[in-house]
């Protein structure tokens, strides 16, 4: 048993929001507290889900909690997001989703009509994916002790024989693709937060990725080395994790990264770097160079991948680090952020 708290109390006597931002502090919690405390082989791969051997079948198992505010936002709501999030985590293991659970934590006073909207939205999303919600749980907390509704979903899926996806499989020479324009979910949410509202036609990109991932795996099989959905912390954090896990360098080309004008404009005004903004319907694929063009064509043939692009490569230099060639040709590091991005003063 570990007797003392592994996070130096002098640094962080309390949990701050930055511990949930998907950046360096989130990693510190995972690596210094959770992984040592729960130590086991399946956990230590630090994938989007665990991969378990069940009587010879490879089963992916994943869980995710959703605390999004506001609960209804342009392009989705907490219900559809909770289904897509776990479906996508399973897809990033290469798995075909089989079943989901749904645990609701409701705050006293939540309008019944809102709950009904959320439940319908979950069912619509699950039906569209073709995966049933087979078990669940409900808890209610005192008014003021929750934010309307929190949802946890977990899911299991079966990994087909031709899929062999893991963060450690990124190899020098591999090509990095993204399935579409980045940062849309984070900016859409921000545009409707109290105090930060701005007018935009932007919608969250929240979408289930199981089908487009299945097509990519059918097309390129084991040549697909890594899949990752860059949710909280964005593309930058996801690639940093992969670079660290696989001990390789990653090099991006800024000019090739797809970005909608509305998102780019919002990021410029708010002083945010879109590389760190969340996505809920995009994924990164790291594939063998020979398969890159075929994977790109497969992505672009799918409705969720029309803006797919090759954005970088895996290199031998600077292992563990992500570098970016800027639009004007300069080079910079793309590091993990400490917590969430803070908008600048001017």
């Amino acid at each position, binding site marked *: 048993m570990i007797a003392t708290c592994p996070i130096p109390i002098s640094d962080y006597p309390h949990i701050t929001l930055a511990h949930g931002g998907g950046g360096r502090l989130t990693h510190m919690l995972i690596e210094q507290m959770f992984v040592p405390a729960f130590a086991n082989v399946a956990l230590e791969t630090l994938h989007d889900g665990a991969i378990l051997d069940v009587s010879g079948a490879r089963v992916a198992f994943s869980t995710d909690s959703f605390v999004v505010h506001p609960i209804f936002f342009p392009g989705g709501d907490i219900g559809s997001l909770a289904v897509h999030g776990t479906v996508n985590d399973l897809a990033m293991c290469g798995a075909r989703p089989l079943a989901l659970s749904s645990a609701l934590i409701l705050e006293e006073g939540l309008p019944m009509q809102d709950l009904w909207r959320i439940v319908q939205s979950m069912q619509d999303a699950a039906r569209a994916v073709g995966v049933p919600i087979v078990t669940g749980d409900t808890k209610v907390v005192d008014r003021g002790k929750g934010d309307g509704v929190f949802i946890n979903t977990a899911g299991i899926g079966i990994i087909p024989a031709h899929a062999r996806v893991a963060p450690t499989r990124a190899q020098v020479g591999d090509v990095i693709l993204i399935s579409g324009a980045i940062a849309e979910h984070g900016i859409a949410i921000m545009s409707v937060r109290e105090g930060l509202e701005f007018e935009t036609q932007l919608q969250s990109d929240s979408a289930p990725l199981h089908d487009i991932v299945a097509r990519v795996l059918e097309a390129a099989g084991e040549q697909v080395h890594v899949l990752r959905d860059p949710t909280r912390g964005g593309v930058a954090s996801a690639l940093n994790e992969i670079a660290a896990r696989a001990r390789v360098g990653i090099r991006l080309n800024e000019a090739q990264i797809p970005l909608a004008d509305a998102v780019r404009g919002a990021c410029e005004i708010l002083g945010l770097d879109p590389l760190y903004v969340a996505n809920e319907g995009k994924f990164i694929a790291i594939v063998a160079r020979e398969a890159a063009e075929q994977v790109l064509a497969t992505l672009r043939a799918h409705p969720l991948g029309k803006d797919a692009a090759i954005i970088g490569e895996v290199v031998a230099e600077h292992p563990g680090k992500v570098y970016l060639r800027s639009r*004007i040709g300069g080079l910079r590091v793309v590091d993990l952020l400490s917590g969430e991005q803070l*908008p600048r*003063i001017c």
Partner: protein
Amino acid sequence: MKYIDEYRNEADAQKVLAVIRRTVTRPWTLMEICGGQTHTLIKFGIDRLLPEQITLVHGPGCPVCVTPLELIDKAIAIARRPDVIFTSFGDMLRVPGSHDDLLSVKARGGDVRMVYSPLDAVKLAQKHPDKQVVFFAVGFETTAPGNAMAVWQARQLGLQNFSILCSHVLVPPAMEAILSSPMNRVQGFLAAGHVCTVMGYWEYEPIAAKYRVPIVVTGFEPLDLLQGILMTVQQLESGRAQVENQYTRAVRREGNVAAQKLVAQVFEVTDRKWRGIGEIPRSGYRLRDEFAAFDAEKRFDVGALIVQESSLCIAGEILQGLKKPPACVAFGKQCTPEHPLGAPMVSPEGACAAYYQYAVSSIQYSD
């Protein structure tokens, strides 16, 4: 995207870089005033594309960096009060005070909120008449009109529950402080484009003449900076010391006169302490007496605060361009964005954070 893409064009950037290389014949040290400019220089890797004769040192133009420690401690003390909603721009929330930062106050139950505009804080005050809403009004001339407008509106609305904690600073006195220091090594300035959008650049003309130093009003996109650097170097190489305007699409000599008028109605010039640098005469704004009712320092008595700076942090030397961040013994070791010892490690505009976040250091990369 218009106004973005044409200023981030690689072929154009290479052309300007080629002219800079042809123009430079000996070493020159330039200072970019504004933290936003530092951010662009490092983020786009411009520092590494320039010929080695040009040294860029990073100026004091990071508002969160120069806000005095006492004031941050005061903000924290006010934010802790149960009757207060404390509002601030985002990057002020993580700046370390003597013992704490505003985000930790929030984590322990304080009502600390990030806003994008001081006018949003005025709206909060209207919405929560039972609470005192305080806005942390920091920044250079750029944010002064917005903050003046917030106070003006609060008075028009007759709000009794709105106040600002004011720490406004001004660029020209800081430039003079740097130039008159015996340790100064700055030979030319890239003046802060957005400050000049508000204030114009006529104030810089006597400085250029008195200290024989070229000053080029410069924008924030990569090509703006490259052009600003070129214009400064051309002046230095030809022995000129004038004020020139690179950022013509936003800046006029007289500036935004309506904004200046509003600022002058609400604020008056005062001596200000700058964190890491010390007191500079007539280098900031305070609320005029007729707006004293909106001064949070007068509204809240927080008692005597014991202020303590980190003994390792060399923020003062960084902000005056005397040293670069990697020269600090604590850089990247005791001092990181997760655990900043000084303000320049906090804001993306802070030179230390820009280096920590973006700068390619020891690793050579073949392109």
